[in-house]
């Protein structure tokens, strides 16, 4: 307990420093972004038929939300805001706090990515064990090569292929949006069904792209454990196959849990391509939008949130390890 508490404290301290650093970096990056969103907005208004003066005035009102003062002043304001969980006000969505926009988008990212990750994890580790056991056979080979390939292929390639096959060619599943608005949100079959229907392809793509990594990791972990003496020892003691299998599985899966926690950290930022291609309104999608809108505040906030997610996942992964591995629990370092 004290061990965990101490580890946690250390991690939090380090994580905190890191968040400050990342926040600072993102503040300065974001404040140096070239491009004139006011001009863009102005052009849009003009194009929409507004008279030039009116458009100029409207743009001025709109951008009245932007902070001013010296850079240092802005920086200290920004950092102070951070402590109040205030990430500022979105530029492209005047009046809406960045945090609200982010939390709205985050829920659309978290669920599908979580589902995709868990799905791929489950399938991946099962097939990974298989690939390790049959590693000299044809099937094992096929499994690992397919794993490597899926792992290696960029997400957008997979996503495009999935859209091509399921949406364009077969037309069985929608590749746009999050849920049909006609259903009343709540626990009703229609709404949930629509939710699932829309999430299916993104989840599938996410699972496909992650699954290769799991297969490979599990395979190599199992191969390592298989080479460990205690497995042979257990066999020589005449342990039941099922027990030996449990020994292998538990020891092999342990490092994967850490990876799982870490990959859940990427959960917030890992779906940019998928969200873009499936028009799924999550954080990645928001980030792209913010980049295109030159929404400084939103961009910085999204980036910060994604990073914080990763940091937290790192902490969780480590604590998890502490709980699950007796070696670490008793203070020994395992490399």
């Amino acid at each position, binding site marked *: 307990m004290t061990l965990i508490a101490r580890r946690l404290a250390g991690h939090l301290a380090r994580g905190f420093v890191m968040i400050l650093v990342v926040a600072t970096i993102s503040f300065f990056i974001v404040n140096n972004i070239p491009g004139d969103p006011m001009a863009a907005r102005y052009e849009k208004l003009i194009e929409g038929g507004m008279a030039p003066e009116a458009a100029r005035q409207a743009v001025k009102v709109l951008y009245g939300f932007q902070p001013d003062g010296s850079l240092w002043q802005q920086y200290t304001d920004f950092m102070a805001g951070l402590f109040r969980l205030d990430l500022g006000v979105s530029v492209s969505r005047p009046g809406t706090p960045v945090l609200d926009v982010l939390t709205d988008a985050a829920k659309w990212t978290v669920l599908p990515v979580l589902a995709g990750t868990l799905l791929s994890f489950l399938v991946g580790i099962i097939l990974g064990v298989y690939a390790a056991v049959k590693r000299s056979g044809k099937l094992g080979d096929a499994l690992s090569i397919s794993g490597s390939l899926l792992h290696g292929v960029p997400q957008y390639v997979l996503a495009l292929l999935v859209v091509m096959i399921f949406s364009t060619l077969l037309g069985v599943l929608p590749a746009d949006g999050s849920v049909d608005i006609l259903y009343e949100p709540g626990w009703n079959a229609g709404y949930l069904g629509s939710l699932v229907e829309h999430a299916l392809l993104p989840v599938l793509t996410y699972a496909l792209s992650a699954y290769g990594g799991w297969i490979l990791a599990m395979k190599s972990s199992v191969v390592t454990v298989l080479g460990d003496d*205690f497995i042979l*020892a*257990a066999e*020589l003691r*005449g342990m*039941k196959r099922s027990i030996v299998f449990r*020994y292998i599985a538990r020891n092999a899966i342990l490092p994967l849990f850490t990876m799982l926690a870490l990959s859940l950290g990427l959960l917030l930022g890992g779906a940019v391509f998928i969200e873009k291609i499936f028009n799924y309104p999550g954080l990645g999608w928001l980030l792209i939008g913010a980049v295109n809108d030159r929404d400084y505040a939103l961009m910085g906030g999204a980036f910060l949130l994604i990073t914080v997610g990763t940091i937290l996942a790192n902490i969780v992964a480590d604590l998890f390890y502490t709980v699950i591995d007796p070696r670490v629990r008793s203070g020994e370092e395992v490399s």
Partner: protein
Amino acid sequence: MSNQAPGVRIDGLTVVYKTPAGELPAVRGVTLTLEPGSITGIVGESGSGKSTLALSLLNAVQPPGRIAGGSVEIDGLGDVVGLRGEELRKARGKHIGYVFQAAQNSLNPLKTVGKQLLDLGRSHGVDDLRGLVREAKELLGRMGLDGARVLDSHQHELSGGMRQRVGIMLALVLNAHLVVLDEPTTALDMITQANILRIVREVHAERGLTTLVITHDIGVVAEVADRLAVMYGGRLVEQGPTREVLGAPRHPYTRGLIQAIPRLTGDIGEARALPGRPPTLATVPKQGCVFRERCELRMDVCDTVDPETVADGPRLVACHAVNSAPASTTVATKEHA
């Protein structure tokens, strides 16, 4: 299966490993009998095939190796080489206890010793798990450990000597009467080694076991074994009662080996190293005597003919030079003063 020490008859055992250069024998035509209730020691240098031989006793040679020929008859089990599946599994642990070469790492790092003990009990259908735990505690206590504490520990909380003792406990707890110890003391320091050897001897006597100890250290065998077998390049070159073999080695390799041991007393000038170097799987001669490259008694036949093992009372030697010479020359070979 009786509660008696079983006898073991290894006959013409050959084990090969698949290598890029084809299947090469790591153990070739080994014939060895373990008398019930005896401690037999096998010495040999690194790579001579000791572990492979030991694993063959459990029919547990790991791929890419396989038993290519011969038999291993164990009283009450029959030919282990023919055993498969469940039968084989049940034989392991229950009839044959195996103490690992690297007993340091023979425990699951994630489970306490006690839990692994229970797994072992369940694997072998032990109904009285409490009894098993009691038995284990007793054994551990017998070896000078606090049983309750050890059963509650994880591997990493135990020292090397303790782990080795746990290994022995796990080999014995199911009442196996044939125990194979592969390098039971390598990587332990002297005092612990002496301790473990004492325990091996005592437990052997108390429980009435047939024990096979494998080591590269003649001292260890000399300390515990009744009978001694010397391996070289996958072949058994000499065997016999320990005292006799040590006192009057016949095979030139055995002689050289004993001569090469640094001694605490006596004239240091007499000791000398064997010339040449031990063979590896790839460099072991395919035909003829495996030792001839380093042998001072080398003859022409040695190059072509594999020497047969010839028995002389309890002693067996496989050497052209020794076996062709009259008995008197054997005695005449220089003995240690």
